[in-house]
């Protein structure tokens, strides 16, 4: 450590002559830090936008979280508003509809995790097995496409497709002799339709990260397996999947962290009072509450609740993963 002064070129401002014996004092450490910043300033400049972004958009707003415990007035500001303690939380948890929304949120997330999470992995594995390059590219483009269509249009497509009079789904059902079903007003159909839509829209795009991970697998693993006599199926199971397992686990943990974030616009576009029973999630509940007159404090309370749940889930998932698979986010 004492030799660090030799690292820079002789003409450069050399570091202050810090003789470190034992633990460096605070000022010594600051000197060292300043020296390093001076020495590698280009790197710190590159780092700066990310840090500034985090501070401004993620850390500073945390100050505003306190409105969850205040009777917030935009005009009076955060500090000017009165404290109300846990009133907003009492309002939320005193409401059956909020609890139903929490239940629905978790159910929709859990089901879409169950079906939606494996979909891009399966897709990526399938793409990986396609040998013909042009066919592969075409297929990939086709499945990526829905990702780039706006939710409003997707919802329009879904509504049309499931329409009882002209929709393809009901047309098909009528061929096999089943009466048309008004799917979008049936609570029991909302989740399958919503989750299916989500998979259709995002699976292709999400498969990119897994494809990238697959591309990173050492090709000699496959060659070695070929020599050992493995079939393609065996290679997929015994090499590809285990090799991308760390990616899968990381993605899973991230996904679990978003479990309270159900695609809000899509629900707003697809749900009906008739399907609130299964479709109303925390975000839509808050949205309807908020219409009554900018209840930011209540929304903040619900947001805080969401964040706490998500944080707990991520911590748990990470710990479990760390223990059993040695893969973790941190």
């Amino acid at each position, binding site marked *: 450590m004492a030799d660090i002064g030799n690292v820079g070129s002789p003409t450069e401002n050399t570091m202050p002559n810090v003789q470190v014996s034992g633990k460096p004092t605070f000022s010594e450490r600051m000197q060292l830090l300043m020296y390093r910043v001076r020495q590698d300033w280009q790197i710190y400049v590159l780092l700066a936008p990310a840090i500034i972004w985090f501070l401004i958009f993620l850390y500073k707003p945390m100050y505003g979280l306190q409105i969850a415990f205040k009777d917030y007035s935009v005009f009076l500001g955060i500090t000017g508003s009165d404290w109300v303690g846990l009133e907003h939380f009492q309002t939320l948890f005193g409401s059956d509809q909020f609890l139903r929304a929490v239940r629905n949120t978790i159910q929709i997330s859990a089901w879409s995790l169950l079906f939606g999470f494996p979909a891009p992995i399966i897709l990526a594995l399938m793409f990986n097995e396609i040998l013909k390059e042009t066919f592969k590219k075409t297929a990939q483009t086709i499945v990526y496409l829905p990702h780039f269509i706006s939710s409003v249009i997707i919802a329009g497509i879904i509504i049309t497709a499931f329409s009882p009079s002209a929709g393809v789904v009901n047309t098909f059902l009528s061929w096999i002799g089943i009466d048309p079903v*008004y799917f979008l007003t049936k609570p029991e159909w909302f989740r399958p339709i919503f989750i299916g839509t989500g998979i259709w829209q995002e699976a292709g795009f999400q498969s990119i990260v897994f494809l990238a991970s697959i591309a990173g697998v050492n090709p000699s693993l496959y060659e070695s397996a070929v020599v050992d006599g493995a079939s393609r199926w065996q290679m997929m199971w015994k090499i590809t999947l285990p090799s991308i397992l760390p990616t899968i686990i990381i993605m899973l943990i991230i996904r679990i962290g978003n479990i309270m974030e159900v695609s809000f616009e899509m629900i707003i576009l697809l749900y009906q009072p008739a399907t609130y029973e299964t479709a109303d999630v925390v975000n839509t509940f808050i949205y309807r509450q908020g219409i009554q007159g900018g209840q930011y404090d209540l929304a903040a309370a619900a947001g805080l609740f969401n964040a706490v749940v998500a944080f707990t889930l991520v911590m748990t998932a990470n710990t479990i993963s760390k223990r059993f698979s040695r893969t973790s986010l941190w």
Partner: protein
Amino acid sequence: MHKLKLTALAVATSVLATTAPAVLAADDLKITDKPLELTIHMHHKRYTSYDENWPVEKAACEWTNVCLKNATIGSNTTNSEEAMNLLLASGKLPDIVGSGRIKDVANQYGPQGAFQPLEELIEKHAPNLQAFFEQNPAIKSSLKAADGHIYYLPYAPDGKYGRAFFIRYDWLDKLGLEVPDTVEEYENVLRAFKTQDPNGNGIADEVPYFARQWEELIRLVTLWDGRSSGSDTYHDYYVDNGQIKHPYAEVGYREGMKNLARWYKEGLIDAEIFTRGSSSREYLLSENLGGATHDWFASTAGYNDSLAEKVPGFAFKAMVPPASVSGVQMEEHRRIPVKPDGWAMGGTNKHPVETIKYMDFWFGEEGRRLSNFGIEGEQYTMVDGKPQFTEEFLASGNVNSQLYLIGAQLQARGYWMDYNYEIQWSNKYALEGIDLYESGDYLVDQFLGVAFNEKEQKVYDRYAAQLRTYMLERQQAWILGTGDVEADWDDYMKTLNKMGLSKVLDVMQSAYDRQYGS
């Protein structure tokens, strides 16, 4: 003394204005001797910023000597509430704040000092507004915040009619049916549409009753003496002999829902009414499938022109509301006389007197004409003492859009619409329909809303949204047949009360009494 003089002046100018050239009249509209500059935040989803170069504004500036300077915050969003929040959070309010949906903001933050109370200023310095309020006391009441003050001046629509019952007259003729007068006849006609193939394609694909907003299906409960809303907002409370009620907790509604569920099941209602959305009218009419609806006069009547070629014989015209089971003919929807849009005076405004005079200007004759018709000689000319849009202007495209471009008909301003402006470009079928509705007395009084005090607001916030959620869930379930209104009703009412309906009605009532009581 001062007030008297001003009133006299105003009267004098308005007399003059009808005869003398506008320029002469304008000289007498001066509010200050020296030009005064006031700042303004003006935000509406169609024009997210104030433009000093709007011809209407230039004229107003010239006439009054009060000129506005743009200080709009949040012009990059089309969401007025968002822009308003940015403005409020900035802590610095301009002299005038004009916005879509300003009512709640003004009433909530006015008492906190964000906006100045206006009623005293109006009394002293604003003869036109004073006159307007005297003519429309209910409007004045509706403006009051919970503390009794008035914090904003509204966009006040003119004219009465909004939506009406429309039906395919050509289909009626084809099937040899009369225009239905009662709910029974209406039902029979819809059934005939369904079963007798009026479009003549051999398939029973007709959609007897459809609507762009599924809430217009619920509107039909009026045919069984129920109510669906008390105002031009869906699902709103209504006033029955000074008593605040929720339409969805009344017996007439139950009867209506029972019958509508039957209609839906029978196919008299568009099976996809909940999801077909805003394009349904366009689609069902142009495909020659839709038979009847309840929709706006102007835009619906317009299809008689636009589909004349595509659907031969097409005649989709207004009919008077069918009589209900008790014989009442009610058109529940009408133009509300006061909108929650408008403008307010910033709490730190140093020139409250000049400002209120300026705001008053727009309710005076010249100001009203300027805000409704634009500039004389440009957009309109005076014909028999009345403004008349020029042919060129009417031919130059959508009238409202053209007017926004010059700064007229801005609803983020407190002004009084003149229905004459709209008549001049209305479809003849719409005017015909309006005449039809004028012939009877079908409209009902509107609930103009209340301003809560803090305690009332808390109660309302806590229960109202969830009540509505529950009501709508049941409502759709009953229509779709997954629940039976008769069987569920007692349970439904019990749940509503458990969810706080009576508490909400209580606070609404106390707020209403305070606001509209003597």
